[in-house]
């Protein structure tokens, strides 16, 4: 099923408590090379047929306005995935 994948991350400047907790846990279990962890969302929008350009545009809009909260998050990617 063709999909549009939207990826959303917490804004760089802001605290990401979840990432922090996971980073600590990784550190405790000896994974020292990982200096930080940030956790965001991967959202799959499914379509019956390959999304058109205008649908991709629309998805970008949805990503910015609804799937992410611009005050605290950034949309880092919107892309079509076939499979």
């Amino acid at each position, binding site marked *: 099923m063709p999909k549009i994948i939207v990826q959303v991350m917490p804004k760089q400047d802001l605290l990401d*408590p*979840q990432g922090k*907790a996971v980073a600590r*846990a990784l550190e*405790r279990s000896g994974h020292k090379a990982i200096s930080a962890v940030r*956790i965001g969302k991967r959202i799959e929008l499914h379509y019956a047929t390959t999304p058109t350009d205008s649908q991709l545009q629309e998805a970008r809009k949805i990503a910015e306005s609804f799937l992410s909260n611009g005050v605290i998050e950034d949309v880092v990617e919107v892309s079509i995935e076939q499979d």
Partner: protein
Amino acid sequence: MKIGVVTFPGSLDDRDAARAIRLAGGEPISLWHADSSIKKVDAVVLPGGFSYGDYLRCGAIAAQAPVMKNIIKKAGEGLPVLGICNGFQILVESHLLPGGLIRNEKQHFVCRDQKLRVENVDSAWTSGFQKGDEITIPLKNGEGGYIATDETLKMLEGEGLITFRYLEVNPNGSMNDIAGLRNERGNVVGLMPHPEHAVEPGFGPDSPVAMRSGVDGLRIFQSVLRSVISA
């Protein structure tokens, strides 16, 4: 009778679990997540709360704690272990119980007096009930939706491993209305509702007799005391 209560960073209902054990007639022993020792206790309760903030997945980080290695090992040898809410999530993340717990269907935290039916009484923690007993204990969780593959569900139903089922309202979208489970041996039980909040008149769910006076949860703790003695 010594029952350990583990405190993880972010555990919240650990004091309450200890109180429940005391009211049932046992001796609560507090265990610390970072110690590997479990101090020769006769049973263990993994209490409710938000260990590690519920970050990543509820119970996932706690399942890696040093104390869990020992608990997993001893559970394999028959040590009674009860996981309440976050404790249930930790049991699932530790693979002591099958399936998973995900965000509530309605997407928000639910706190309510929940009616349950006791479905199976052949476990260390449910032996004090009669099969089919209807009890009311508080439920409070954000991620209590039980999910499992069809195969697992069939196995759970077929072998009678479901210990508690939601009655009247399914508060979190759990499959087959599952509120609690046991392992095959019957020493490990996990449930989303909080029996430790229905143990003391005045501070529990409403009952027909008086407000906030339901004590149905007490029997879970009394069950384990009895089953440990008889074992």
